[in-house]
């Protein structure tokens, strides 16, 4: 009962924050919370972890593919009719494969993908909280350590956009073909079946996937892109700048100092002023509300001791750095890129993440 009261109060606070922002003219920030809450509820209720799907869970993979199918077709219509002018502006190149390979390799050590980590933190799981703290630190180190290398790796193919080079239709066809092929593979692994959707029970993957795709389509039409790493990195650099007494700002404006090229390319935004930050806060808050209302919140009980937490934290740091090689995590690098008809980026990310996850799992089994 206490848990449900917490859930209701938290939902009310998130609604209040959204209302305050919208009422004061910050439409993008206020609605960002609402879209985030929708994502958070969906991924928590349907356990939408891309890592689990890429390890071989055919049900979850099918759910993700159904969502991608909806989002791809919706994006095609939105881009074709001019409602939205551009797909995800992320660079295509070998860096995507390298970064996603490392990201996938670290997933078994972190205990999930980015989305999975967020919903598990929202469910009150301590190892995921340690991993998220590590990811935050990685998002500070990544811009400092690897961004210049990423730009070098991306340089030969930067500017290549399949939908521009060969048309939106071709990009959609590539997506549909890849989704159909993967659906066929999941059908071979597990026969097709439709589990009934009961709102009070954990949602079946197909329902979560469809809901994810539908929310994504609406958000893409009226709000923008679903990305997670950018606001995290911006926030971390902002905090580092504040901690340095704005000395970093001074150096960055001269094009000097660690992370200067990242700041030049990605801009620094104060966390409280970044609409994407409100989106991420909404995702975490939505997952927390869903976990509290369903009585699943774990209150961050620590199982396995501090060594386990330290391992998750360290893997999280690596993951946070890897996303700035791939220029995206499984959300922006794979899902958003694929869904907004950048198949050349999205499916390359998926391949790297899949191969990395296989390698990572093998090592985890050996170590345990």
């Amino acid at each position: 009962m206490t848990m449900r009261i917490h859930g209701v109060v938290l939902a009310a606070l998130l609604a209040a924050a959204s209302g305050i922002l919208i009422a004061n003219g910050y439409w993008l920030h206020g609605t960002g919370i609402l879209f985030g809450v929708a994502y958070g509820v969906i991924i928590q209720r349907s356990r939408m972890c891309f890592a689990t799907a890429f390890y071989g869970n055919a049900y979850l993979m099918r759910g993700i593919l159904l969502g991608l199918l909806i989002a791809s077709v919706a994006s095609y219509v939105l881009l074709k009719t001019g409602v939205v002018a551009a797909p995800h502006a992320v660079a295509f190149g070998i860096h995507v494969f390298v970064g996603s390979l490392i990201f996938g390799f670290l997933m078994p050590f972190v205990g999930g993908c980015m989305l999975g980590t967020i919903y598990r933190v929202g469910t009150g799981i301590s190892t995921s909280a340690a991993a998220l703290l590590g990811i935050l630190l990685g998002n500070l180190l990544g811009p400092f350590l690897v961004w210049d290398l990423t730009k070098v790796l991306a340089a030969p193919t930067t500017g290549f956009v399949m939908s521009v080079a060969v048309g939106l239709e071709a990009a959609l066809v590539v997506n549909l073909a890849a989704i159909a092929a993967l659906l066929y593979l999941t059908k071979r692994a597990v026969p097709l079946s439709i589990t009934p959707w009961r709102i009070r029970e954990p949602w079946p993957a197909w329902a979560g996937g469809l809901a994810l795709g539908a929310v994504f389509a609406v958000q893409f039409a009226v709000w923008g892109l679903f990305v997670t790493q950018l606001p995290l990195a911006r926030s971390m650099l902002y905090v580092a700048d504040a901690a340095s007494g704005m000395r970093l700002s001074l150096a960055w404006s001269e094009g000097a100092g660690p992370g200067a090229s990242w700041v030049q390319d990605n801009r620094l935004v104060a966390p409280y002023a970044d609409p994407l930050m409100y989106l991420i806060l909404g995702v975490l808050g939505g997952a927390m509300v869903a976990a509290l209302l369903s009585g699943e919140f774990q209150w961050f009980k620590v199982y396995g001791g501090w060594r386990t937490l330290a391992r998750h934290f360290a893997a999280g740091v690596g993951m946070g750095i890897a996303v700035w090689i791939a220029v995206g995590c499984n959300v922006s690098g794979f899902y958003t890129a694929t869904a907004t008809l950048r198949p050349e980026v999205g499916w390359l990310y998926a391949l790297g993440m899949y191969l990395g996850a296989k390698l990572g799992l093998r090592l985890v089994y050996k170590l345990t």
Partner: protein
Amino acid sequence: MKLFPHLFFPLLYGLFVVAMALALVASSKPDAVGTITVDRLNLSLAPGDRPVLVFKSEEPVNVAVFRQRDFERGRPPVIALPRVLDARLAMPTDVQESYVVVASRPVSVEVRPGRVEETTQKIRRGEDVERAYVKFAGDRGTYQLIPRVAPGVVLKGRAEGRICLMTEAEFKRWRESGVVAGECFTGEFQKKFEDFADVYLVVVEPGVVEYAVYATLEMLLALGTCG
């Protein structure tokens, strides 16, 4: 063993989000607009700010925008606009930044608050967003380094007399020898830029000149690297 005070974490999280929202509301009002008449203005910007400075003057006035530290060290301004009648300058910043705006005589200045993110959203929706607009009384030989030029940016304008758009090399040659080069226009003109190279607008025959620099979707795709 618990990492957080278990009874309060969800509530503290909710309060944290509300506090963030209140911090944003308290930091600036999006609709707040003030007009002042000054010959010097200090402007402090937070990361992600994109205010627009609007200048109006009955008489031609020289306007220069310095970074604070450049101003203190006697370095050249980042934007110098001679003989301005009307101007709108977007001032986007990625970092904490302070500017000093200096005019050769008191001029009406309006600061329209804005955010980089809001502009990015507009561009993503396919709108071209004005980065700079300048209307000036062009005497023969008046020149301006066109502000806010970047790959994918479009320049549109109109000249009563005749103007020439010159590259850095052409501009230097003109300054040294008076040889007019570059692309010259009378009446309406338009040009799209492909890189960050400096471009000068030089008045060859006198008359009022006005031009605007627009950010386009192409600029966003050319510069956007991020997920």
